[in-house]
């Protein structure tokens, strides 16, 4: 009697509870990671600021005013001005758009390439070895030096083809993407190797699904979580890489104010105008830090087996 009542109670509870999905579970877990939540809030603020900021804060990025050069933060210029008297806040807001666009686009390229290579290598035994050798070869390339060289050598061609800003954007994004797909490919391949032997794949094959359908509809969704985590952290890495390139003077043209470029220009005025370097540097740091915390939270949320 008691057991029966208890069962009824449990059934009632289950009936009342909304059906749970992977993503609502993940969100529930993610909310418990306080630093990840703080990171999400910071990143949202930064993204909104760079997207909407230039609409609200109407100061132009490239008006030169020598009488107001190297001024510290003030009501008129909240982040101060550079040596030519240009407003640093306006330039930093614009630079944020560039940095985030580069980060997201190059990671999309890396993820797509990595997932395609990884799935093919993991699913088709004959292609596994050659594709993994190619992956190893790419992993052995000295990434940053090569990036510098490729961008320097080919930027004139792309500039001629697509214009100075778009040309460099395409170039930077594709080179960062092409030099960063290998970890994703390895991850996806490892998952495919274990998943393709599972019963649900067998079942799909029995009902007549072809290879393409099994890969896309049955195995790939199961690989999604680690790829999402890798992608999140990858965006931070790509933003760092882009600002490193700009800092070495090999990124966007000088009139496009990216965060790294602002620091590059500021480093020779560090004693006279520290604010010039501090604000863009802090923005890079905050963006990457919040992305890393979000990535950590996502890893906790999406992978229940992980320790640490």
């Amino acid at each position, binding site marked *: 009697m008691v057991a029966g009542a208890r069962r009824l109670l449990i059934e009632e509870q289950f009936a009342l509870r909304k059906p749970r999905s992977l993503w609502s579970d993940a969100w529930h877990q993610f909310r418990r990671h306080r*630093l990840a939540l703080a990171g999400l809030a910071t990143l949202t603020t930064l993204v909104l600021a760079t997207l909407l900021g230039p609409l609200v804060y109407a100061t132009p990025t490239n008006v030169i005013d020598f009488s107001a050069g190297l001024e510290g933060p003030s009501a008129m210029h909240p982040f101060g001005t550079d040596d030519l008297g240009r407003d640093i806040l306006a330039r930093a807001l614009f630079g944020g758009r560039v940095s985030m666009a580069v980060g997201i686009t190059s990671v999309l390229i890396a993820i797509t390439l990595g997932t395609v290579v990884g799935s093919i290598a993991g699913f088709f035994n004959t292609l596994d070895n050659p594709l993994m050798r190619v992956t*190893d*070869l790419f992993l*052995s*390339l*000295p*990434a*940053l*030096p*090569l990036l*510098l*060289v*490729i961008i*320097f*050598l*080919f930027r*004139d*061609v792309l500039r001629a083809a697509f214009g100075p800003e778009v040309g460099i954007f395409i170039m930077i994004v594709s080179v960062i993407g092409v030099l960063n797909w290998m970890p994703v490919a390895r991850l996806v391949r490892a998952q495919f190797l274990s998943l393709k032997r599972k019963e649900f794949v067998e079942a799909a094959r029995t009902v007549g699904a072809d290879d393409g359908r099994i890969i896309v509809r049955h195995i790939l969704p199961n690989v999604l979580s680690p790829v999402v985590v890798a992608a999140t952290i990858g965006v*931070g890495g790509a933003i*760092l890489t882009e*600002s*490193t390139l700009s*800092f*070495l*003077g*090999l990124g966007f043209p000088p009139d496009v104010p990216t965060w*790294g470029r602002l*620091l590059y220009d*500021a*480093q020779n005025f*560090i*004693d006279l105008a*520290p604010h010039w*370097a*501090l604000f863009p*540097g802090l923005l*890079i*740091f905050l963006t*990457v*830090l919040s992305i*890393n*915390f979000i990535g*950590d939270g996502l890893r906790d949320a999406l992978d229940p087996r992980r*320790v*640490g």
Partner: protein
Amino acid sequence: MGRYLARRLLVAVPTLVAISFVVYGILALAPGDPLSQLALNPNIPLEVQERIRHSMGLDEPWHIRYVKWFLALLRGDMGFSYVGFSPVGDLIWQRLPNTLWVVGLAYIVGAIIGIPIGVLSAAKRYSVFDHTATTFAFIGFSLPTFFTGILLILLFSVKLHWLPFIYDTTRQVHDLDSLIFQVKQSIMPISVLGLADAAILARYVRSEMLEHLPLDYVRTARAKGLHERLVILSHVLRNSLIPVVTIMALGVPTVFAGAIVTEQIFRVNGIGELLVRSIGDSDIPVVSGILFIFAALVIVFNLIADVLYAVLDPRVRYG
């Protein structure tokens, strides 16, 4: 072991050749004339230009040039710089000690700071120390090295006037004063790289330790009454360090790449600075030489990592 090593070498050598081919190909296929500086000089007649071009072998197709370059490379000859008019090998050898000094010390400093922090973090998981260390580690690998460098310069050179912000490689160490100067000028470049390494290592050590802590052999060690410190240091740490050693070996090339940025900030006369400058000068022989050295570093340290892993972990079969 010998057979294992031989097999790894058999894979490494073709990879190195393939990479040298890719690097040379990218440089050769790039638009732009390496001798454009010459073409701009009105004092050199066109026929002389052609002769220079011919004497440098630049009128030959690039795959022929690649084979010649590679064969010369095997003899240790990396060609002549277009700008400095001295052998590329000499240029690199002059600067290598500066890079090695900064990069090598930074890596050691990183390990000395990072590994103990990782161990303590894992041993006292979720304690105040762990949370603080985790936060600092995240800050450490989210801070771009060029920003840390600028912050340090701002604080210690501009505000406090304690440390010089340019690394002067002409100074020799011969007495106590010059040693103190050398130490003072090394502090900032080394800590920029070292702190970034320490953050990454601390995270690795921590997560490796946490993988090992719930294992049976740890319970056995505790059950037989070992002191917790002994359990952590001589059982868990020793096993956790196996993958950490490989990670450290694999990280060496990345650290060299990091030196490119640090050398730029502190004006260190190293190979990273040489690379950036040669790229700006279109000095193709120097660029290809340095790129090849970086590629060789990656492969050599991959090999070292594999061998170390096999030596340290008896479970790895030499297959």
